[in-house]
């Protein structure tokens, strides 16, 4: 009885493994979506980090760890860097439709 | 000083400090260390010194009780066979202490007897990780 269960178990495992490992080869046509592209994700992450930095900077200023001039100078610089990132994202989005034609 | 130069100086200073501290550490470790010996090594070398760490297995039928929970026993090498050394021990005895148990005790060799520092006994967890299980 246990031998039968064991055999079924092994069979099920083998079947599952074979099915799972071969699935990517059977499913065709899942080309890269423009929104998914790696470069875009990287830029998104950079943007998030930059926003975190801007926020942190503001918190530091509000909790008294930066003088007025220091804060404003830093804030300007960080926002400029954020703008650059946004520009890069826009450029990337604009170039994708052209590439997939 | 230009920034790159400043960085270089900082790096050299911190590295030098680190090397100095590490050397101090390493030097003191050699002088503060107590030799870790097995009974056969201890008897062979007849080491003097007050802080010897003795590791071995309690010999069967060698345990003798004394007053106040103190206990005398013989300790032999873990690999078995070989000379055993008499150990005088006092202080707290871990509940896992028994013949055949591996343990570590710190003390000094006086004559042919190893006099242990009070409460310095550490018994090892019974081995469950050996690849070949022992049969009882």
């Amino acid at each position, binding site marked *: 009885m246990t031998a039968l269960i*064991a*055999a079924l*178990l*092994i069979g099920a495992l083998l079947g*599952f*493994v074979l099915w799972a*490992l071969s699935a*990517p*080869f059977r499913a065709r046509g*899942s080309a890269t979506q423009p929104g998914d592209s790696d470069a875009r*994700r*990287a830029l998104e*992450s*950079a943007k*998030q980090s930059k926003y*975190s930095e*801007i926020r*942190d*900077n503001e*918190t*530091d200023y509000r909790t*008294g*760890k*930066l*003088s007025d001039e*220091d804060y404003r100078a830093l804030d300007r610089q960080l926002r400029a860097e954020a*703008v650059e990132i*946004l520009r890069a994202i826009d450029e990337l989005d604009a170039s994708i439709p052209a590439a997939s034609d | 000083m230009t*920034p790159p130069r400043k*960085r270089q100086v900082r790096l050299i200073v*911190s590295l030098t400090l680190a090397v100095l501290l590490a050397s101090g*550490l*390493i030097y*003191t*470790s050699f002088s*503060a*260390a*107590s*030799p870790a010996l097995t009974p056969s090594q201890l008897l062979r070398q007849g080491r003097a010194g007050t802080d010897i760490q003795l590791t071995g297995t*309690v010999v069967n*039928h060698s345990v003798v*009780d004394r*007053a*106040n929970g103190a206990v005398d*026993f013989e300790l032999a090498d873990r690999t078995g066979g070989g000379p055993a050394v008499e150990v005088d021990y006092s202080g*707290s005895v871990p*509940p896992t202490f*028994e013949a055949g148990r*591996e343990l*570590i005790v710190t003390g000094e060799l006086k004559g042919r007897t190893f006099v242990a520092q*009070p409460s310095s006994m*550490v018994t*090892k967890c*019974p*081995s*469950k*990780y*050996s*690849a070949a*299980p022992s049969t009882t």
Partner: protein
Amino acid sequence: MAFAGRVALVLALAVCAYGITAALYGGRKGRRDWVDSGRRSVYCLAAILTVAMVILEIAFIRNDFSYNTVANTSSTTTPLLYRAAAMWSSQEGSLLLWVWLLSIWASVATFITRNRLRDIVPYATSVLLGFGAFFTTLLVFFDSPFAQTHPAPVQGAGLDPLLRNPSMLIHPPMLYSGYTFFTIPFAFAVGALVVRRVDADWIRVTRRFALASWLFLGIGIVLGARWSYYELGWGGYWGWDPVENAALMPWLISTAFLHSVMIQEKRGMLKIWNASLVLAASTLAIVGTFLVRSGVLNSIHAFGASTLGIPFVALIAAMTGGSIYLVVSRRDVLRSEHSLDSLFSREAAFLLNNVVLVGLCFVVFWGTFFPLISKAVTGTSAAVGPPWFDRYTVPLALILVLLSGIGPAIAWRRASLANARRNFRLPLAAAVLMAVAACTVVPISSSIGVVLLFSAAAFVCASVGQEFWRGWRARRATSSDSPLVALASMVRRNRRRYGGYIVHIGIAVLFIGVAASSTFQHEQTLSLRVGQSTRVGAYTMRYIRATGSVVADPNHTGATMTLGAVLRVTRGGHYVGTLRPSAGYYPAAQIVPGLVVASLISGDAVDQIGLQSSWRRDLWAAIKPLGATLPANGTQLPEERLVNLADGTISPTLSATQQLQTAFVELGLIVAHYIKFPPAASFTLIASPLVMWIWIGGLIVFLGGLTAIWPAPSALRSRLRARYLARVAQELGRA
């Protein structure tokens, strides 16, 4: 069924091998389908190993002693919960647990990165499956948990009573979770270095896993200390034992990584540091796993000489060599984008933090491996003891605590002097006040370290408290939330920062407990008869009466007999509490005919500590009912004379069951005699201040870590994003 288990392990190994090949091929050729197949191997590995684990656990629960591992570590007399836990008390079982946990975490990591880091994932997957292959190879070829003996023995050896404790149930899985989690940042670090891409996206993914490893490992360490305190009869929680150190070292390095990765995220600095730290932490985690089972160092834990030493050393060598090669050959990618603006900045504080933590790790490493080092250098193996460790770790720990108070209050890039003065005035005042207060309570000459540490802790709490206060006030100024909501939303908006601050407070509290309890502890080991008392510090402890029970094991650990005492504790004549230490006696592995009663209680004995904890101090008692030594194996048996008498009265013509039943009755009589006419017993008594703060500090650290790791709600994230987008766009329009 064991055959199915063996097949499962072989299948697991095959899947690992396939996955590595598929992922690497797909990565090199740019073929998504091959990479995906490789990634799915990770999921398959998790599924297969789960099946193997379930098969093994069922064997344990059903007491199937045909499995060698079940026979060696469990028994019918072991309670159910501990039977299930016995699975990982053996080498083969613990290896299976290790690789199973690895497969689970790897699956989580694989799922989270299913649409990101496309160039790194193939290599990271191969590394993770490489670890899987290593451990499954050990399980298939060296030490299988599914090895069987036929015919099966009737009874097993039983779980070591020392391990029958709730802390020990969680301690190995928690520690292993910590160790195995480290393989994920390692895998992604290797992958990132291979493809030469060490950027923000990689950090965001790796950081969470590093934080999880840090959290699990930290909990494992604290639980281990708790077990040592509550279970072992020496009343201590940290002995600088090699296995304690083995878990501490990767934890220290990952603490450094978690801090310094913040700097890479914000300023693109310290990239070489971070790559090295994450690779080192993971390698040390494997070293830790290796130390516990190798027998290479004398330790309470070193489980005899195992045959797996060489494969592990090979793995560690490969990880170390590979890491060094990668960091050196990719150093152009790891160049800093900025440099240190000022020594008066958060970056500088974090850098110093890194240095101190690495220094601490070096001290611990040196002391731990010293026996091997000294053997290589001088020919004799020598060990350094806790005094040597304390001498170097205490000052370094002090600096660390101080830094944890400086860091939160100092600004990024450049802190102006005026601002620094404003921010540190309160914490410094708190530190000085505490120092003065401490000096009045303790003699400063003998305990300068304690005074300094208390001051540093006050410094940290004031500094962090100030941060919370100011942040909360700022939040209240810009929003109309009620006070409590403002506090909650402040923390929620910046979980990492405030979670980290909470961790700092936890560490400070923990060190207060450590400093006080190690410096001002009073301990006594002596034998007492009923009615006698002794002084321990300011307390008087009196042995009131003896206690005992047979089979009705009050601690539910399967002890056959428990003998104990009732101690009354007073202070200055006032009643303070009652302690009830006891010793549990367990059956020997086999019942020896003719010595049935003795066999019932001559197995390992375990201390049940009598403990009364309060905010101010712990009262701790362990008892060892004195007895004559059993000639058979040297165990000390209380009431040995009576035990021998009882054994003599059991007729060998009775059946085994009847003999057992009679033996239990005799044991009951012996216990009754012990209670009525108790002999002297040996007690270890300790009064130790502020021990509870260690555990409270650990809990605070855990809560802080949990706060930091909790993912921000995505709705909130996108709302903020939209707001900022609008503002930046506005500027764009204006510029």
